């Protein structure tokens, strides 16, 4: 399969980090990272659609992190709910566009999941991100919503593969085929979270490298790296520290075959900083940079 580069005119950024509450002292060090990945939903309060133009309100202490950083930025959303069987929220997409323009986001991304569910004629929160079956109707819904986002933001849009704990073995297609078709039909690209993929290899016996073989790797624009932990007999994407060795193996395999890769992002939850430390964070960034430098 050959596709146009879904990253468009976006820069090749290098190695970045996901912003969290404790990251400011780290990114203030010269050359610590090449860019900042931001979950905009953490930087604003959504007061609900009924608030009209006053719906989204900055959280000043968080926004100050961006104002001080001066780093290139990418937007990583959690509120679009791309796979939800509810109407697209035009106010949310308008906010995605406004945020991307304000901070000159190189691209935007969202998870392949639903976090909102229908509640009569309205929508309500599911309470967690759930992965839908890899069905044709879910693909059509996701493609339509991605096209809407691309049209209204005029920015590259990436879909992130999710970790899933429940499987639906009778899905219409395999996950890799779903993601390939999504990119081909929407014009979007992939944010390939290698730790999410690793979770699925541990929990469901998927082969990570075979999964990469099945993916059209020209669609991969960004990679996520993270660590995880045990959760009730399963392995969870808890962002609890440095990536485990198999995730680094997947990264080495991927970078040599992903010609449109523009960024590798390390994400950890701020509550794990005491265990990881800024030294540990720097070690992860340095190792990711070695992989970045070795790319094709």
């Amino acid at each position: 399969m050959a596709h146009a580069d879904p990253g468009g005119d976006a820069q090749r950024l290098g190695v970045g980090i996901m912003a969290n509450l404790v990251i400011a002292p780290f990114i203030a060090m010269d050359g610590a990272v090449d860019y900042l990945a931001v979950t905009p939903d953490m930087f604003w309060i959504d007061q609900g659609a009924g608030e009209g133009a006053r719906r989204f309100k900055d959280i000043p202490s968080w926004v100050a992190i961006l104002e001080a950083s001066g780093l290139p930025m990418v937007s990583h959303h959690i509120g679009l709910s791309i796979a939800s069987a509810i109407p697209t929220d035009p106010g949310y997409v308008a906010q995605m566009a406004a945020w991307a323009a304000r901070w000159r986001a190189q691209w935007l991304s969202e998870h392949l999941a639903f976090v909102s569910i229908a509640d009569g004629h309205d929508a309500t929160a599911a309470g967690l991100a759930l992965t839908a079956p890899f069905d044709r109707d879910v693909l059509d819904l996701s493609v339509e919503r991605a096209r809407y986002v691309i049209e209204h933001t005029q920015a590259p849009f990436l879909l992130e593969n999710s970790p899933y704990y429940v499987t639906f073995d009778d899905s219409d297609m395999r996950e890799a085929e779903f993601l390939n078709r999504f990119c081909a039909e929407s014009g979007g690209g992939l944010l390939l979270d290698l730790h999410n993929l690793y979770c699925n290899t541990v929990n469901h016996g998927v082969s990570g490298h075979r999964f990469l073989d099945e993916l059209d790797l020209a669609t991969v624009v960004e990679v996520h790296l993270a660590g995880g932990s045990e959760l009730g007999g399963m392995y969870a994407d808890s962002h609890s520290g440095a990536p485990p060795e198999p995730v680094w193996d997947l990264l080495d395999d991927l970078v040599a075959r992903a010609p449109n890769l523009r960024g590798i992002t390390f994400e950890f939850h701020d509550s794990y900083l005491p265990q990881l430390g800024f030294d540990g964070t720097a070690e992860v960034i340095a190792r990711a940079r070695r992989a970045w430098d070795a790319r094709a």
Partner: protein
Amino acid sequence: MAAFQRAYADLASSPKLCLAVRDDPDAALASYDLDERERSRLARAVWQRGMDANCTLYRTTRITALNSVAPLTLGLIRPILRDVLDAYWEDHPVHEVRFARETARFIAWLEEHPSVLPEPAGEIIALARRELAAEEMRLSA
């Protein structure tokens, strides 16, 4: 698809509903407008270890909202926290993603059900209100 997603999310939020579906899937899922494929998928899903993980993640998410705003209050009632939250979630099964609003709803619920708290219940609720006020002040700063 909307009914399937609703049912799937309800299962992830309720170990009790998962057990009911294990016991009698037709009866437990009867209130959802599911086709046979969807019904069959959910009837199988409740036997997966992954559904237990979803239930745990759901509870973690909801506790995080309250613990972010009112950690002192939750710490104070830690010995009975599980029972209190089970009762609260039973009455309010839908998650409120805005932490401050979720906490305000929880406090209002405590005021309606002070008997779930040890004495002095009124002072515990007052502590929660002070923590919420501090959060609201922080957000509006």
